[in-house]
């Protein structure tokens, strides 16, 4: 629950973006998703596991995700989240605008440094 103060808050939409990108590659259930993000980000991001759930519900509501029954790694029945067609489209748009923004910030910072 405690967040280390040297880690900043995520900008709005970042969490959704990461979830969508992760689930786009492979549909997962909630715990697997949380583990995946933690492993890949190598602990650089401090995300509370539970905070995924409101984001997941929001995306379920807007229709970017859908849930269905599946099996976990331990062969238990779990609910698995999958990206929909609309979600995929949203993901592409968001990724491209995120990359543009990131590239722009980088350029400004590079110029400022030199």
């Amino acid at each position, binding site marked *: 629950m405690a967040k280390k103060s040297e880690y900043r808050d995520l900008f709005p939409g970042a969490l959704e973006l990461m979830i969508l990108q992760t689930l786009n590659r492979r549909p997962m259930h909630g*715990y697997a998703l949380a583990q995946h993000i933690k492993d890949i980000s190598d602990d650089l991001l401090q995300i509370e596991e539970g905070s995924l*759930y*409101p984001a997941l519900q929001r995306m379920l509501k807007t229709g970017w995700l859908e849930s269905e029954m599946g099996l976990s790694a331990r062969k238990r029945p779990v609910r698995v989240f999958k990206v929909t067609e609309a979600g995929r489209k949203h993901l592409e748009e968001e990724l491209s605008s995120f990359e543009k923004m990131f590239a722009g910030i980088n350029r400004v910072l590079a110029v400022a440094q030199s």
Partner: protein
Amino acid sequence: MNWLTQLFTRRRRYEELSATIREHLEEKIADLMDRGMTHDEAERTARREFGNITRIEERSREVWQWPTVESVLADLRFALRQLGRAPGFAATAFVVLALGIGASVAIFGFVDAALLEPLPYTQPNRLMAVAEKTATFPWGHLSYYDYQDWKRMNKSFSSLDVYGGSGYLLRTASGTVPVDAGRVSAGFFQTLGVKPMLGRAFLPGEDRPGQPKVVVLNYGTWLKQFGGRQDVVGQTVSLDNTAYTIIGVLPRSFSFALAGNAEFWVPINALSPHEQTRNFFNFFGVGRLRDGVTQQTAQAELTAIEKQLQNQYSNQGRNLTAQVIPLTEVFVGNVRPILLTLLGGAGLLLVIACVNVASLVLVRSESRRREVAVRGALGATRGRLVRQFAEEGLLIAAAGGLCGVLVGAALMRLLSQLVPKDMAAKMPFLDGVNLNAHTAGFVCIVAFGATLLLAGTSMARLSFQKVRDGLATGDRGSASRLWQRLGANLVVVELAIAVVLLAGAGLLGKSFYRLLHVPLGFDPNQVATLRVIAPDSISKDGKAQISEFSREIVERVKSLPGVESAGMTSLIPAQCDCMNDRIHFPSRPYHGERNDVDERHISAGYLPALRAALVRGRFFTEDDDGTKPGVAVINEALARKFFPGEDPLGQKIANDEGGRDTEWEIVGVVGDVHEGALDAPVAPTEYFPLSQTGDGSFTLVVRTRQHATALLPELVAMLHQIDPNLGVSDEGTLLAKVEGTQAALLHRFAAWLIGGFAGVALLLSVVGLYGVVAYSVSQRTREIGVRMALGAQRNAVYGLVMRQAGWLAVTGLALGLAGAVGVATLIRKMLFGVAAWDAVTLASVAAVLGAAAMAASFVPARRAASVDPVQALRSE
């Protein structure tokens, strides 16, 4: 995405969400256990790393909710539960509001129908009623020739028409029935802007003499007499033994207040001999103003025309002017003051109801301080608390409003039925009194106001409060004393209003009593009356035949068992000052003064049958018939006005009877009989013998030894036996006719209604007073215990409590009396024979209130006096 389906699947979503989170945790626990933790350690770690499960679940659920709506609904449910836990408060508040709202809705319904709804004509605000006016008769009708001249010469009106009341004998399958009718000029319906629903109205020129006889039907008559058949146009109907062709049927919404129950409408194409004089003012004028012309312009123009006409035709009084008044004013003018008074009374009742409920809320919020403080400590914002109180207020106001609507609807129906039939015919707006958009809007506004009031009082209590005070038990600080005083002060307001209403009711009641006890000058008890119209076959034949015929009727009537005496008159007393005459005196020079007097045509036995007092000379006898010179009997008022200090017997009056200057010798003076309306002073009156004036219709007046009502059917049967074509109508007793006049009815209505309001107001404010005193006692138990422990006697405690109540009552009384005098000045137009500051009424109101206040405070005082000091000191 479709929010509607989302609503239904929400529960499933919540379950899925819980299940998903559960799975998450189980997986994590399993993983951690694989790494070597025990089950308990794993569970703790998993939960810790997950976060606050409840909070996360809530936040996830919120995604699917409309948070504002949800919390409002939750608050409403909570409010309902709270009210359920305090049923006494809820029931009292509900009943009080329902009564207050119901009464004011009912009265508002009447006010709306009479004053706010427009008349059923096109652009009714452009319609003016037109009359000739003198100082003595401020509202005189038009004479036909004057009307024609005005019509020709005026430029202010796009059309000007007249209406005259009339009656015919309708021949139906079951016999002859007298019916009311309207005689109008040809353009009457066009001027009003009324289009018949079948057929047509009159064409211009159809009102000239010699035109074919046509008639337009009333909607109700078309349904009743002609079965609502579509082919009724072109059929004939027999009125007064003449065939009239039906040319149209009026629409259902049509009404003309003066016409009352008129069933047939005919054009004026024949004038009676009276109407052929310029001096006989028989017609009611209606005109439509041209665009851009104002009422004042029209009045000025018509006055100028009138002066011109007077100079042309010198046999009119010199000071006739024109009067132009909006038509609506004429129709509802005399009802307006009473309706507004009633509205004021209902409004006051509503105020009392609201004040009562507000003080109830205040008292209750005292006992909820703890709850509010706890909620505040738990994190409720002020806005949230305010919203909750507002919703509680809304619930009570809505429930009270709904019930009030039902009460109001029932009251409206009840009151409409209390108005007698022929008065109701003259007030066609009564049909429109029911729940409609206006009354619904009124209820909404009132309920909204009540909600604001209730929420406001609860909230006002909030803002003065500190959380710590609320949580602390024991003695309260100064804030509480302030609120106690406020609660008490509100009761003073209630008491004051109750005093105002009581005083109003007392004054109106006294007015009514005075009205009914106006000295009549005759004995109205056990007298049967009915109206008789001689058939054309007899009235055509001339005065001698008519008087012979009417004499026969009186003789036959007198021969019936149980009849003491009988007579006939053209108009029974106490109705109105209609039937006027302008007289002059041959022995004096005449300069055109307007000597206007009431005129009545009576039979020889009439005044003795009424038991009127003979002051000088004699009454008429059978000898005074058409062969002898004209004789007259005058009343004392006429004698006083025109023959002061001299003997009127033997002197002559002259008037214009049917176009000819006629002289009448005064043979007797009768004690004033109240011919006009009860609330008007006795007008000078002249009486002529029927046998000399030759009226074809008259009212039969029969004094019976037993009950007058029992005789009526016999009378009617006997009259029909004499001649089946005789029109017999309006049977009733003289007493009922006197008490049923509009003046008497309005006063009775007003007195009863305001009396009802006053009763309810008194009850409510006494209950309020009781509540305040009882509450104060319960708060002061400790103090009383201390006093008694220190040696105060029971009497002292009684005195303590009742003194407090006494102060409240006295203050309320003082305010109320001042207010009562003020209000009475406002309604003084409706008071008759009673001054606005009538000392007896005010004193009795004070006594009533004093007694009620004493009674209300007695019970709490007794409870206070029986406090056990030990118990009181122990309680916290």
